[in-house]
């Protein structure tokens, strides 16, 4: 169905960023505008997912040029779901930023760049053209370069060099892969590619291109052995920026992998083997890496890597149930990871350190906050009925169906390692008796902040914890959406027909 208004989430974020640039020097107006516009974006994305779920896939051809020649934007259940999750995390981080980001950073354009980043994310989810997807990825990484270096602390710059280098490399690989794909098929529209790639006789070349795409998106979503940049850089920027990076930036890589490997390249046995082995190694390195860290932000960075492995594993099994699990886990992971990085921000404001060994005594001094922290931490582990649990049921079930026992073992082992890490974190930070830490001069502590800023740091954590609890306890709704998306990932005919019009039999 053609609907020119599906592009609104992108346009509205651009509008917000421009509006914020007009208020460059007025930091209080910027905070207010950012929160209000994030709320409106949330409304727009709820409207979008509602019409897509009720009326089917919506399409618009930018500039009025027909597919496959023009740039297509497609709003299908998967992309609108990702936009909804982006808007929820975006709203939470926007509120959190008003409390936690320093004035010096706001003065240099923190909020406009933040909304440009969200615009890039929304654009990447809506793009129905593989080159357009690349362009949105560029917008995302350029905004993230600014955000990760903003402030210019020494550790931040060191982390950002690794981040920038690896992401530029990923862009080069991605662009090369697009060039080869265009040489093979003569098209860039993803729906059109889906038909054309299936008809190519030289399967070897197709597999090489698929591997190139896998490497490009793999670097961005930090899979083994290309994950080293992530734990080396995500703990350096301020917590608000870490939160949006940890929650969304690697997941956009997973989204791209899901899109490309279900629509364009249907994995054969060779590809599923490659993806499965990469997934196994990613889970093991991520979760084992988290086990030995002391900095709590580094622990969560390593766990991001490990849990990306879970989602890739769902793609590696390539059954409908496994993909349903991946979608469910994606929903859960975006919310929980954003929340956890914000929690580390609050911990730092209270104690002035990220070191697990020095922290302690949280339950004695802040019992309510500890209970609040328990929600994301135990959701991450996946203690039933919290949100991380349900996806694993699907994966383990399809692992047994596809007789992939090693993967099932690694999935369980990875969950066990996550449990151990989180139990250790809980014991060290919350239950252990804490010593009084020496006060640092350059840290602005929680009790020194204005009451409104304190509220602004706690409210988003409560908000995302509620969403997490809903994902866990209202799993029925989330599973029914995940099932719908999973079935559309396996049977892509509705997507192709929405873009190119009804197919006649000879083309297929």
């Amino acid at each position: 169905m053609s609907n020119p208004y599906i592009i609104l989430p992108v346009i509205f974020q651009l509008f917000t960023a421009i509006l914020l640039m007009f208020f460059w020097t007025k930091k209080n107006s910027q905070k207010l505008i950012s929160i209000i516009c994030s709320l409106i974006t949330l409304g727009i994305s709820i409207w979008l997912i509602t019409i897509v779920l009720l009326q089917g896939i919506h399409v618009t051809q930018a500039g009025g040029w027909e597919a496959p020649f023009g740039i297509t934007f497609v709003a299908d259940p998967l992309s609108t779901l990702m936009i909804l999750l982006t808007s929820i995390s975006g709203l939470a981080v926007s509120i959190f930023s008003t409390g936690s980001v320093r004035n010096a950073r706001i003065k240099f354009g923190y909020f406009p760049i933040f909304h440009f980043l969200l615009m890039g994310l929304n654009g990447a989810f809506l793009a129905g053209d593989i080159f357009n997807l690349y362009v949105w990825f560029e917008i995302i990484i350029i905004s993230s370069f600014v955000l990760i270096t903003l402030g210019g602390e020494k550790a931040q710059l060191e982390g950002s060099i690794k981040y920038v280098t690896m992401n530029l490399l990923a862009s080069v690989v991605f662009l090369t892969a697009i060039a080869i794909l265009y040489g093979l098929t003569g098209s860039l529209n993803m729906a059109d590619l889906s038909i054309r790639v299936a008809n190519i006789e030289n399967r070897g070349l197709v597999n090489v291109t698929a591997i190139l795409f896998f490497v490009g998106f793999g670097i961005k979503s930090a899979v083994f052995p290309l994950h080293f940049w992530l734990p080396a850089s995500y703990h350096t920027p301020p917590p608000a920026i870490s939160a949006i990076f940890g929650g969304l930036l690697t997941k956009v890589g997973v989204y791209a992998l899901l899109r490309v490997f279900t629509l364009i390249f249907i994995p054969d046995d060779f590809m599923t083997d490659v993806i499965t082995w990469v997934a196994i190694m990613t889970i093991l390195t991520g979760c084992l890496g988290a086990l030995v860290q002391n900095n709590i932000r580094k622990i969560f960075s390593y766990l991001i890597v490990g849990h990306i492995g879970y989602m890739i594993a769902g793609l590696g099994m390539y059954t409908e149930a496994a993909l349903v699990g991946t979608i469910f886990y994606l929903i859960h992971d975006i919310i929980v990871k954003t929340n956890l990085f914000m929690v580390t921000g609050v911990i730092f404001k209270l104690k002035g350190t990220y070191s697990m060994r020095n922290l302690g005594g949280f339950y004695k001094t802040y019992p309510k906050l500890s209970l609040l922290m328990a929600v994301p931490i135990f959701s991450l582990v996946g203690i039933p009925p919290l949100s991380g649990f349900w996806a694993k049921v699907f994966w383990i079930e399809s692992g047994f169906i596809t007789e992939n026992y090693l993967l099932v073992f690694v999935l369980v082992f990875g969950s066990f390692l996550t449990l151990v890490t989180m139990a250790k974190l809980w014991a060290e930070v919350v239950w252990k008796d804490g010593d009084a830490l020496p006060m640092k001069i350059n840290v602005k502590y929680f009790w020194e902040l204005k009451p409104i800023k304190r509220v602004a740091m706690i409210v988003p954590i409560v908000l995302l914890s509620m969403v997490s609890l809903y994902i866990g306890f209202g799993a029925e709704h989330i599973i029914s959406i995940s099932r719908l998306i999973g079935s559309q990932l396996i049977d892509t005919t509705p997507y192709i027909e929405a873009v190119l019009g009804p197919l006649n039999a000879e083309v297929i």
Partner: protein
Amino acid sequence: MKTIIFKTASSYLLPLLLLFAIFILLRGHYLPGGGFVGGLIAAIAFVLHSFANGIERTRGIIKFHPGFLMPIGLSIALCSGLAPLLVGSPFMTGLWYHNPIPVIGMIGTALIFDIGVFLVVIGVVLTIIFTISETI
């Protein structure tokens, strides 16, 4: 570089280069040119003026901070993209006024988009140049 010849020449070159920038801007779309190149030329006009007369004099001509041109240009470009939505066409569809206007030529949303780009480029380049010359 504060020679009398350069100083005198620069005050004549500033309007000439600005005029040339607008010519390049209008020439775009079908012929080589357009908002980006036009914006660069306009920015160079001011850079040349600042070389000859010092950065403070150039700031005096512009009156406001050039960074302010960025959001203005971006909003003009965004409006040109949004205009087709009012008549029910997809985002960024080119709408054209049918009769060409003397001197300017065809008027359409593409021209408005280019004007937006023109302003953004001037804003970005002058902000960078002014900031760098401040710190030296």
